[in-house]
């Protein structure tokens, strides 16, 4: 096994990584939503890397210390955009790690990566988790741990770094709400993962793969929580000017420059040393920024781009990714889990239900707020059906109301929504769908009464079918549920979905599922935390 590598190897690893990234530049651009959705992360990273490799090619000394320094210098000279500048910091940290070394082995690489992660963070005035910063840190830490066990096995260590980088990328939406909302992973992190993956493939000698195959993009295992049924709801905010330049001089103080610029814009990155400082900032006043910098030294590679222009191109790219429907669905729902469920199915939710019917005004506001001109309403309650019907006359938008009386009816209707059909066709099939589901609800009797010979005491559990027929009552919630399900015709259905309420624990509900599973083998039984108040159980029989 090869034990030590030199500067040429390091250069070739990153050259391979850059070519690898080049193949997926468009894909990386397309998922760029943070800090500004301008769709250029991949391009910026690639251009930065080209400058890295150019500088590396010029280096005549092939010790790793000198080579890494040349690469870092190249990154600083060529850095473009937010991600490019952070990448430059990563190379700078790596050069620190390799400083003074002629060759490197596994543990040297691991240490250099840890340095890189640290330096990247230091370069930012406001480091944000769920970005390339998180990815490089988690990847470096993982590589370092692997190096403890096999300090000489560079291939294994880089392999571990890459593996963790991929997993870290997949987790980014959990850390950064902007990503979660758009249903994508962080673009910079994705780019870094591909770069490292390419470097690893080179180390492993997978040259044919590098030539003929394409990198795998990491996907987020989450859904876009909003906008799913809507064409797009991007706000047309102005983003100002993306300002980018290299400041050269003597005795420059990057830390001081950062403090000075902090309040003058967003996405500020300042990176460099006493002789050269790279600045990236989104600002409404690029002139003021340049004037400040001119006083400190000479300016080079000045780039100022109007981000509104960039944003237009980005919108077109996102359009290709959007769902092919121009219809929005607005649903009335209550209970934390229920609301999440509706949102995960693409509906926009107005909070409300049995005990707190939303007003016409509230529903109307939501209908007006969605981007789409065609809206389907799911009232999910018999009292709200009437309210919802009034919306039609109050808006210019085309509104259709599905007469759903219960939350399960609404879910079944939402499920059948066809992304390619018209408003009319969808309305028809969604109305039909509400008839295919039977709803069983178990709640508490609000007062003592007598229904069809059943004596009910206040506070007892009662079972209701389709929001109208009270079919069972008793002191034991589970018993009332079981009896109601029998009367509701559980025997004949294929699918049972149980939404348990806020007043029940998951274990209690799980017990019910176990009993039902034994009693009715072969049925698809699902348990979901609905989190609804007042209702112990809401069950859908389909």
């Amino acid at each position, binding site marked *: 096994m090869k034990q030590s590598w030199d500067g040429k190897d390091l250069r070739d690893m990153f050259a391979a990584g850059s070519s690898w990234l080049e193949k997926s530049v468009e894909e990386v651009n397309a998922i760029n939503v943070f800090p500004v959705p301008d769709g250029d992360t991949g391009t910026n990273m690639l251009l930065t890397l080209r400058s890295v490799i150019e500088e590396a090619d010029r280096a005549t000394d092939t010790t790793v210390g000198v080579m890494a320094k040349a690469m870092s210098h190249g990154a600083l000279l060529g850095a473009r955009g937010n991600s490019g500048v952070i990448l430059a910091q990563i190379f700078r940290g790596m050069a620190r790690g390799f400083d003074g070394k002629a060759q490197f082995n596994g543990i040297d690489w691991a240490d250099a990566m840890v340095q890189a992660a640290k330096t990247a963070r230091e370069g930012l005035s406001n480091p944000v988790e769920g970005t390339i910063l998180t990815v490089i840190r988690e990847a470096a830490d993982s590589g370092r741990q692997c190096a403890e066990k096999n300090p000489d096995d560079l291939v294994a260590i880089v392999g571990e770094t890459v593996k963790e980088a991929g997993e870290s990328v997949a987790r980014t939406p959990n850390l950064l709400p902007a990503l979660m909302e758009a249903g994508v992973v962080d673009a910079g992190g994705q780019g870094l993962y591909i770069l490292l993956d390419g470097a690893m493939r080179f180390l492993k000698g997978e040259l044919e793969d590098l030539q003929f*195959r394409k990198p*795998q993009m990491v996907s987020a295992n989450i859904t876009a929580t909003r906008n799913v049924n809507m064409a797009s709801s991007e706000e047309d905010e102005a983003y100002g000017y993306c300002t980018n330049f290299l400041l050269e001089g003597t005795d420059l103080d990057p830390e001081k420059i950062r403090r000075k610029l902090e309040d003058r814009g967003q996405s500020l990155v300042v990176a460099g040393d006493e002789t050269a400082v790279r600045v990236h900032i989104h600002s409404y006043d690029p002139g003021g920024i340049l004037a400040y910098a001119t006083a400190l030294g000479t300016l080079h590679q000045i780039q100022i781009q109007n981000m509104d222009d960039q944003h237009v191109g980005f919108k077109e790219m996102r359009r290709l990714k959007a769902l*092919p429907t121009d219809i929005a669905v607005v649903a009335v729902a209550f209970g934390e889990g229920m609301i999440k469920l509706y949102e*995960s199915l693409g509906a926009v939710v107005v909070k409300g239900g049995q005990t707190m019917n939303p007003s016409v005004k509230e529903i109307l506001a939501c209908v007006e707020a969605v981007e789409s001109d065609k809206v389907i309403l799911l009232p999910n309650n018999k009292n709200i059906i009437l309210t919802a019907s009034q919306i039609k006359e109050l808006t210019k938008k085309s509104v259709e109301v599905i007469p759903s009386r219960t939350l399960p009816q609404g879910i079944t209707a939402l499920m059948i929504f066809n992304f390619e059909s018209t408003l009319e066709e969808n309305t028809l099939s969604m109305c039909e769908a509400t008839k295919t589901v039977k709803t069983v609800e178990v709640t508490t009797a609000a007062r003592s009464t007598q229904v069809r010979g059943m004596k009910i005491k206040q506070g007892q559990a009662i079972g209701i079918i389709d929001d109208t027929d009270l079919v069972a009552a008793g002191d034991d919630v589970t018993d009332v549920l079981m009896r109601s399900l029998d009367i509701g015709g559980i025997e004949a259905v294929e699918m049972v979905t149980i939404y348990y309420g806020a007043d029940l624990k998951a274990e209690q509900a799980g017990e019910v599922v176990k009993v039902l599973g034994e009693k009715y083998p072969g049925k698809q039984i699902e348990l979901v935390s609905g989190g609804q108040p007042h209702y112990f159980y809401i069950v859908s029989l389909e």
Partner: protein
Amino acid sequence: MIKIATDSTCDIPADIIKKYGITIVPINVLFGNETYRDGVDITPDQFYKKLVESKVHPTTSAQSPGYFSEMFTRLSKETDEILLILFSSKISATYESAVQAKALVGDICKIEIIDSGQACGALGLPVIKAAEMVEGGAKMADVVAAVKDMCLRSHAYMVFDTLEYLRKGGRIGRAQALLGGLLKVTPILTLRDGLVTPVQRTRSRTQAIDALVNLAKGANKIEALMLEHATTPDDLEILAKRVAEIYPREKTIFSRVNSVIGAHVGPHVLLMSIIEGK
């Protein structure tokens, strides 16, 4: 006579390939370092067995420009006109590779390359129609126009048990929106603008088959129909019986989902491809 070529994702049954002398370009499917040419080195049975058993998730890769230029050169010895119809360029580099190869070989003969934007039966059905036209003596320009038109009216509706394979393979496209849902969903997806795009969600395989039947009923007029499965012949038969009430069974083409698409959709996919009438 025009020589027609396509790739292995077309799912055209062997007897029809033979009847019209269609050339098939095998796409590569890889398990780690093992490379297989789809339909040449690996049969669907072998592939799906491996898909379920292997710890490594398979990937796929386009043929190189070198492969295509060699093929063009070989075919040019038999014909003056080659029509190559390929699967969606949005999910594979195959089309790009072929276009590069065309530039490489220069003027050896007339070469037309079409990006169908489709895969599976939705690619195979237009290819078969093209072959019939060529057999009937149609001219290149007419065949090309007809194929392009048919590809727009051609739909592959796919029933999925899980979107995990699509996600892992990076081909999730617009179906990203269906990920992470809180209920178990059996979605129906298709290729639209060459990208994976959701059509509908259902809650179970039974509901999904109902939905496929409704999609067939809802079609303007069915010009051609292909039904395919990966590892579930029984489900295919249930679907076939119900679709037979809408379109004659004897005209329906039955096939098996190829390894390349299989790698991205998983072993339980059920597929109905239709060319819809104008």
